[in-house]
């Protein structure tokens, strides 16, 4: 059968995957700490019909070969870790990371997950937890009598007690990865480390290249809506064009079919 029938269909499949990713980005446009994903494509291998460099005459070789390409494939869905917009919320436990780094939280099964979502809450025991109730690591327990809590850009958490004294209740740390794009998304704004991401390096916020903590703010997603919409238009048009190529291949086959009467 015609190669084009299959190569054009790979084009449609690739654009579908792209649309899936764009849709996911757009649906998470307001998700705190969400990082946009991008589909990356590769052309497939080429079948040579004539290899370039084949001798055609004495002292003369083919300048370029003749080959058939087989379409396109999705090679990666890459997460882009650029800074999201910072939105002021005024919430005491709303923490945004300005710059590099992740918060660590403990999953129910004991593993450590990483997140940029800094919308923390206080549970019944005075501990800082995520919206899903996962404990922040290192654990921070606030005195139940605290009147107000202040979190400094370098992660020092201090509580003001009713008698006016200020008590240091702990230090927030951040972790960093050599290759954050290699982290595994497990949903709920959480990531797990993988062999590709490298191991987590822990550090103090606002030092050694780690981002600083901004209290009373949240980091919104870094999805650029205009860009996503443009990508959506491009994906649809490329999809259309590839379907035309399939139709043409179909026309070719019909034409061949009518050769014999």
């Amino acid at each position, binding site marked *: 059968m*015609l*190669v*084009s029938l299959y*190569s*054009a269909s790979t*084009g449609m499949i*690739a*654009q579908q995957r*792209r649309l899936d990713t764009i849709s996911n980005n757009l649906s998470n446009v307001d998700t705190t700490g969400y990082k946009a994903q*991008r589909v*990356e*494509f*590769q*052309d*497939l*291998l*080429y079948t040579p*019909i*004539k290899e*370039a460099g084949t001798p055609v005459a004495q002292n003369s070789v*083919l*300048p*370029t*070969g*003749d*080959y*058939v*390409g087989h*379409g*396109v494939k999705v*090679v*990666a869905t*890459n997460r*882009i870790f*650029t800074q999201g917009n910072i939105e002021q919320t005024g919430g005491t436990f709303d923490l945004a990371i300005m710059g*590099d780094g992740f918060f660590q939280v403990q999953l129910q099964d004991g593993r450590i997950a990483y997140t940029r979502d800094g919308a923390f809450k206080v549970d019944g025991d005075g501990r800082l937890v995520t919206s899903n109730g996962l404990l922040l690591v290192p654990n921070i327990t606030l005195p139940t009598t605290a009147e107000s809590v202040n979190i400094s850009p370098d992660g020092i958490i201090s509580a003001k007690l009713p008698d006016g004294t200020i008590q240091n209740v702990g230090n927030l740390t951040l972790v960093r990865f*050599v*290759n954050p*794009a*290699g982290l595994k998304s497990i949903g709920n704004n959480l990531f797990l480390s993988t*062999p*590709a*991401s*490298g191991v987590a390096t822990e550090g103090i916020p606002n030092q050694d*290249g780690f981002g600083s903590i901004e209290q009373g703010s949240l980091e919104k997603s870094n999805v650029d809506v205009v860009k996503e919409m443009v990508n959506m238009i*491009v994906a649809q048009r*490329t999809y259309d*064009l*590839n379907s*035309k*190529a*399939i139709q*043409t*291949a179909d*026309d*070719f086959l019909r*034409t*061949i079919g*009518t*050769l014999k009467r």
Partner: protein
Amino acid sequence: MNRGLYISTMGMLANMAQLDNISNNLANADTVGYKKDEVLFKAYLEKEFRNYDSNDLKKGKHLGYMETALIADETKPIISQGQIIETNNPTDFAIFGDGFFKVEKNSEIYYSRNGEFKLNQDGFLVNSDGDYILDTNNQHIQVPNNFTVDEEGNIYNGNQLTGQKIAIVNLEKPSKFGINLFTGNELESKNYKLIQGSVEKSNVDTLKEMVNLINANRAFEIIQKSVQTQDSMTGKIVETAQRI
């Protein structure tokens, strides 16, 4: 047998090669760093026509040449600039001008215009397949946190040069390997600007490809008519011959 039938068939095969190529270009219309292919056709079996009605029956009188068929002869990558799109991702690079990145895959060196790079677990610059990007000394490139790269490819850590420079080389006769890679003979490239935080889209001109698609389709139909005509002529001959 009727020679025209075979000539027409070759024309149809050439059109099919054209269609395969257009489909591959369209499928890769969104592939970063993809360079479109062009199929070049060649007249096949040029035939000399002679008039043997002259006195010298052996030589005959030269009347001229006729091309008896057409074949798809070459597929050639067209290395023109693709559109540059800003991504703001620090590990994305676009080459504006001439040149290719050097990529080490299975200990061999390939070339690519796709600059969607990543860092691996050790902080080395790699492509989506995990192949290392090479510097001007053919070494793997390890970059510091928050690195920047200037237009020539020099890598900076803050304001300080790290001493490594992303290699950009020209190719004498770039030929496609696939999976975003090219092969060819290395030449020096001076006429380029490396842009960090951007990628180069494919240089496929979708309008042109669609026009080529229509052309190929119509040509295919027309040649088919010619095949049918020749077929019915043969049919007539057979019919007439039967009656005699």
